[in-house]
């Protein structure tokens, strides 16, 4: 099931989504990464981020609400400690880049241009990090500027990751018109679990809400992919949201995805992506 995405060969359409798979080093204890179509790094930010205090994981039926808060040790540490490891991997590495302004995004992309990393994914849709109370996507001028400038400074394919919050069609159009080569759909939509037994803090998460992942968001993810594919039939889409078995993968491909990401499924069972690949 080899797939060609903008000239890059993927052994199969299965990639690890950003986040639940860490930066690869943790995962090699469990699976052989070279069997994957690709591997997306956890979103890297310019400065280190300590992440949110616990709890970060709220169990819900058929899914999870996470409030990790983009914990990562920052770009410098990524360059030094992770890139050499990632460059050695026999799979396509996609670097997920998060930032708070155009300069941060551009600095990181430039620094990674000469590496063996195959594609960039701009994470503009993290539900757990705000820019003054708002995700970047809510600032259309800044979103446009980030994508426009980022696309100019790299030859590598540039994907933009969107969620369902915001006007999907409008944001997809904006991304593509400003130089994005593809889209990643979808990031975890915002959600809350209320625990009636916890009287002092029924939302449990300190921020009150987190990002919802897993099979519970599958119909929404398929809807987003379908809608965008319908408008931009030639733009490659990395689809994700609740993929946990082979049938899910086929459904995402049918809805319009070119590659299919697995996040929650890795948390269920780190071997799940490989088990699916074997069945394809």
């Amino acid at each position, binding site marked *: 099931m080899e797939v060609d995405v903008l000239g890059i060969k993927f052994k199969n359409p299965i990639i690890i989504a950003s*986040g*639940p*798979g*860490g930066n690869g080093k*943790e*995962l090699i*204890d*469990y699976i052989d990464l070279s069997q994957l179509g690709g591997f997306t790094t*956890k979103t890297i930010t310019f400065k280190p981020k*300590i*992440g949110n*205090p*616990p*709890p*970060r*994981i*709220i*169990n819900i*039926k*058929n*899914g*999870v609400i*996470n409030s*990790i808060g983009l*914990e990562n040790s920052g770009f410098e540490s990524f360059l030094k400690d992770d890139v050499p490891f990632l460059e050695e991997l026999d799979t396509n590495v996609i670097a997920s880049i998060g930032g708070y302004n155009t300069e941060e995004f551009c600095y990181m992309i430039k620094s990674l241009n000469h590496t063996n990393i195959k594609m960039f994914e701009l994470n503009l849709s993290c539900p757990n990090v705000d820019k003054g109370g708002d995700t970047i996507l809510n600032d259309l001028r800044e979103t446009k500027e980030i994508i426009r400038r980022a696309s100019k400074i790299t030859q590598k394919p540039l994907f933009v990751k969107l969620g369902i919050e915001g006007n999907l069609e409008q944001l997809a159009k904006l991304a593509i018109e400003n130089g994005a080569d593809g889209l990643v759909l979808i990031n975890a939509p915002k959600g809350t679990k209320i625990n009636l037994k916890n009287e002092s803090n029924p939302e449990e998460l*300190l921020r009150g809400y987190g990002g919802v992942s*897993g*099979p519970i968001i599958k119909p929404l993810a398929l809807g987003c992919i379908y809608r965008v594919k319908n408008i931009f039939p030639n733009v490659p889409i990395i689809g994700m949201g609740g993929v*946990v078995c082979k049938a899910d993968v086929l459904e995402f491909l049918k809805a319009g995805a070119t590659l299919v990401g697995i996040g*929650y499924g*890795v*948390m*269920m*069972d*780190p*071997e799940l992506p490989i088990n699916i690949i074997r069945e394809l």
Partner: protein
Amino acid sequence: MELAKVVEKKIIKDYFVLKVETKGPFNSQPGQFVMINFLDTFNLPKPFSVMDEKGNYLTFLIKNVGPFTEKLATLKYGDFLLIRGPYGIPIRNKIDLTKKYILLGGGCGSAPLIYFLKEYPLLVKETFFSFKESYVQSILPDLKLFIDDNIGKTPVEFLFQNKEKLENSGMILCGSKGLLKSFFDVFPYMKDWSYVSLEENMGCGTGLCKGCPVQTVEGVKMVCKDGPIFKANEVNLEWK
């Protein structure tokens, strides 16, 4: 994940001992846990400490506190589960092996300590496998338990009145954050001689998802991968 067959369940009210048969040995060590899941859901697995491993059998001590453990409690002989692991750093690899330890477990927190006692009796000075209710004894018949209701105090209150027990000994504590905090409120100086096994709600259980953080003197660590056992003076239980 591996299939495991339920071969024994002893249940009394909200506590139960669950024994499962696996294909091969898990080679778990005291302090380690496994991730358990059901075959018929797409929910995340949940962590449970190994209370015993022998041959191809793993034993757990579980308290029914919510939907997952409720469902575990309904399992019957011959039912199947999914299990992966073992995860976490064995207690033995973290502690100072030149000392003897008092083991203080709160409720199911006793599970890894029970395993520890069995494997390393020479490292143990005294045990407090503490439970509020006396009925738990019936499913752990071979163990000396500390039953709050019988003794009329919590183990922390008991130790406060018997401080001499703590002299020259290390402590290994395993239980809720509440138990750990109440102990160190009373014995702040014991932080330097204690290890705590932490519980944090988990996602992957394997250090991948960054879902189970604890703030330590060396920055944020993951309970599942860097723990669950930590030196008491290295972790901040108040991070909010």
